[in-house]
């Protein structure tokens, strides 16, 4: 099973990876991508079960990636968590419209993210 972490901030990628690291003991592979285009390529090539997706990114934003994956490629088996900065509440609807399964705001709760990932992967 694979999880793809997408954020243009290397810092945030490191934090998300660290939050999810113990899943590696259960055989989960953690992958990462630094922009929307790379994310899309990785999703198609690796078919991760879960994608933690930042919204504000260069090249292709999180909404567009989510829309392509869910609405155009029809990859319903890919669970997408959108992560975005706090206070942009109207974005929530936009994220859900694009087909996101869950919406979390930054600063995110590392424990909640891990718990959610476990639930999605059935661990």
């Amino acid at each position, binding site marked *: 099973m694979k999880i793809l972490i997408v954020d243009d901030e*290397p*810092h945030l*990628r*490191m*934090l998300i990876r*660290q*939050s999810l690291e113990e899943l*590696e*003991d259960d055989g989960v592979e953690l992958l*990462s991508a*630094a922009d929307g285009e790379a994310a899309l390529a990785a999703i198609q090539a690796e078919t991760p079960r879960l994608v933690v997706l930042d919204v504000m990114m260069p090249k292709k934003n999180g909404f567009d990636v989510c829309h392509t994956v869910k609405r155009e490629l029809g990859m319903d088996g890919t669970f997408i968590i959108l992560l975005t900065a*706090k206070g942009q509440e109207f974005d929530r609807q936009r994220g859900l419209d694009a087909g996101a399964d869950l919406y979390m705001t930054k*600063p*995110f*709760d*590392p*424990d909640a993210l891990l718990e959610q990932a476990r639930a999605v992967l059935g661990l």
Partner: protein
Amino acid sequence: MTLKALVRTDGAPLAALLELFGAAIEDADGKSLLGKAAGDSRAAVLLDGTPLGNVVGLAEHVAAAAALVSHLAAKESERRSLANEVLHLYREVHLIDQLSEELTALFDAGAAAHSALTQAARLVQSMASGIFVRRAEGEELACAAHTGDLAALPAKESGFLEEVLVRGAASIVNAGEMASGGGLRNLLFAPLRAKQRIVGVIVLVNDGSRPYSAADLKLLNTIALQTAAAIENSMLCAEMVEAARSREQLTALQRELETARAIQHSLVPRTFPPFPDRKEFELHAQMLSARAVGGDFFNFFLLDEEHLALVIGDVSGKGTASALFMAVAHTHLRTVAAKNGEPAECMAEVNRILLADKASSMYATCFYAILNTRTGELRFSNAGHNPPYLVRGDGAVEELPQDGGPPLGLFAGVYAGGVTALQPGDTLYLYTDGVPEAMNADEEDYGDETLAAALRELSSHSPRELIADVHARISAFVGDAPQSDDITMIALKRASVQPA
């Protein structure tokens, strides 16, 4: 930290290493994890003295392989504990953010205003109502809550609201002309008075069929009094939460900088003299971090009995991210240096690794050299770093040629190598850009010329004296101006009298 976790993280270099030695690694239970063993001798892999498992292979190879794997395990364990520390800090930031949000919600002026209007509607008949507040005397009024049609309420330009603020008394305006809604309305106003300050106005409007009475006025005044206190409190509270939040953010930032500094300093040698038994050369180094931690690094280590490796570098950017990048680049270089011969090959290899798992837009300038401590031959390669100075025993100062390539992690490139010789009495002086770019209060740089001139005068000094003296000169030049970048220096001197 387990060997299994190490295999997961450093699988590729580890596999290559094991193949080279014809060895395999197994965990503490004897389960094989990676590699093919060409023999059945075992040597333990240790982390802080605790066995993690074994390297299995030929008797003559296992000890060396186990030592290397132990080193990798120590580095990985260090990286993990730092990453965990950063995660811990982040968890705190999240909790504080969460708490302040809940507090703000609890003391929400809008919520207090809304419940006041709901109360008023039960007691006094109206078609629309509103509460307008201002944060301070002289500020614009803003609508904190309203019921019914906002357009039915008196507009700010109508002057009604301002008048209540100025007079500070409740009033009835029956059949008042509305500025925005048109038509005749009955209006009821009361000031929101908290202690000595009027924080806003509450207003009720009906359709003109029934005039407001003195009893209505009295009721509204009572509601206004209670509401004013709640609104004033919520405003004060919001200000306090805001202040606390920026303080907490500042503290978190401060801690992040401390973490970055700790990372930076944990990776550079701290014991001087580093090789007290070696009489053929003398070595000293110093790193002074600027307040906003930069990404300088340096290291030196013996590759074998007569080869000393020296590294100095500077990562782009500042803060935790560059400190972590520095740690990564530094670890790769150290690992590669242990395997490869020529400095130019090492640079190319590290550059390739950094570009392959390119996690950021960061890059590092770096100078890497190997000194043959017996012959004085110095082989080097420079990845975009300030060229070191060769300070001859007679006082002549030369810059080393720019043989090398692009900074590490920037783009793929070819690295050239250079060769020179250190005669007995010669000193190699390596530094980062914090030295020539040290700035005084008039924003003038210390400069390359001044540095070269200083080195000319200091050619007879020992490395320790030379670094102390250059540092003193820079301090005198900079004066009270804050240190803007890390300042790192290494001096390596070949003894004038070589041991037989």
